[in-house]
């Protein structure tokens, strides 16, 4: 029988469920839908536990499922009510305001969804760029370019950031 990491996956999910929720919430924007997305991702991962080749890839494998689930959810539920198209990448440069009101989290929401996710995965979830490339299915160079552009739009000083 093929190797199956069901138990390892289950354990990983239990340990990291709050991370998944935060990612899902950031994508879909409300608690119920975030719960639905997390649930969908968990069920898919466990159902396809045999697709995971080795446990070293567990994290990127699961994040990828979670991201796909979020994207699919948004596609299916694209009601006029909820989603407004994000600004084109070039358009979003923010004027820095008085120190206090510069909340990156809020500004982040104005960037294209994929860029938002790349920034969150890099700085909130501390994934490496290589890992993000695996999660998003993008080339490493594409991930880098999107990250740079996003950070520039956010006017985050890039010195000292390990890219």
């Amino acid at each position, binding site marked *: *029988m093929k190797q199956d990491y*069901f138990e390892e996956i*289950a354990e990983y*999910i*239990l340990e990291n*469920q*709050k991370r998944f*929720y*935060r990612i899902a*919430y*950031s994508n879909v*924007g*409300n*608690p*119920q*839908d975030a*719960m*639905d*997305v*997390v*649930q*969908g*991702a*968990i*069920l*898919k991962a*466990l*159902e*396809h*536990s045999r697709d995971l080749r080795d446990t070293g890839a567990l994290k990127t494998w699961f994040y990828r499922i979670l991201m796909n*689930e979020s994207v*699919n*959810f948004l596609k*299916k*539920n694209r*009601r*006029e*009510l*909820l989603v*407004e198209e994000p600004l084109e990448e070039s358009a979003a440069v923010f004027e820095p305001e008085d120190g206090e009101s*510069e*909340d*990156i*989290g809020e500004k*982040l*929401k104005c960037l294209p969804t994929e860029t938002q996710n790349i920034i*969150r995965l890099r*700085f*909130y979830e501390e994934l490496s760029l290589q890992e993000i490339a695996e999660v998003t299915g993008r080339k490493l160079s594409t991930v880098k370019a999107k990250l740079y552009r996003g950070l520039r739009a956010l006017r*985050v*000083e890039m*010195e*000292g*950031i390990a890219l």
Partner: protein
Amino acid sequence: MKRMEESRKMYENMVIPEELEGMVEECIRQARTKRAESLKEETGGEKAEGIETGEKRIGKSQAAGRNTTGKIFRWAAGIAAAFLVVTTVGLNTSEAFAMEVQKLPVIGDLAKILTIRSYERTEGDTHITAEIPGVELGESDNGLSKEVNAQIEKMTSLYEEEAIQRAEEYKEAFLATGGTEEEWAEHDIQIKVWYEIKCQTENTLSFVVKGTESWTSAYAETRYYNLDLKSNSFLSLEDVLGTDYKSVADGQIQAQIEEYTKAGETFFTPEEGGFTGITGDTSFYLNEKGNPVIVFEKYAIAPGAMGEVEFEITR
């Protein structure tokens, strides 16, 4: 970089619904049961029995006896209350308060569906947009239009009322859990009631009336109307598919579920409250081709992330 650190802290302080942990455990439990079943099938029983031992083993009778028909998947109510992080929904809303009657003839001369009331209004912090439809069926109308219109009126006004109530409860909970009025003001609470025409021919009219709320999809309401304009009556699946409508539809749905599953989608098993067959009351509409499309509401046969699930049945 300091700002990034701060924003990360805020991110990590996001309020997590209490229901998350239970949901995750339940998912794992269900997946484990499902897996044990499929291992048994694959290995002819004996081997699987050996693998699933101790507390991990969940007997079939137990799973069936639980009979929660997917209820565990419907944690929805109450989560919004535990929710603190402020999100602004990007949507342009006109403050205009408009109440007008519009007539949009759609179907020939005899029967038509029209917007009988269209309005925008604000109640407290809640913005309501409504387009309430009604049907007119011409001379041969035997009272069907009256019945349909009364149903629509009742459903839409009840939905609106309840959605406003939910918005108020949401606000209360938001303030009670430490949110401020200013933060609340950033919420853009919207309720929308509208309709869509699915199919219109000389003989049939199929349309759907919907109610949605901008802050949650858990209470969305959908009602389908399929009318036979010749006999002025409601169309049933039996009228469309014939007397063996049930087996025809069940067979095609089962096949489509298998296709979806192959493509990686997840459905509940019958034990979890998944698809077991349609009934005469199962929701459907007619698409442009005139084929019935059977609709299962969110959570009915698949996890919530699948949303509504539709199956076109070919005749």
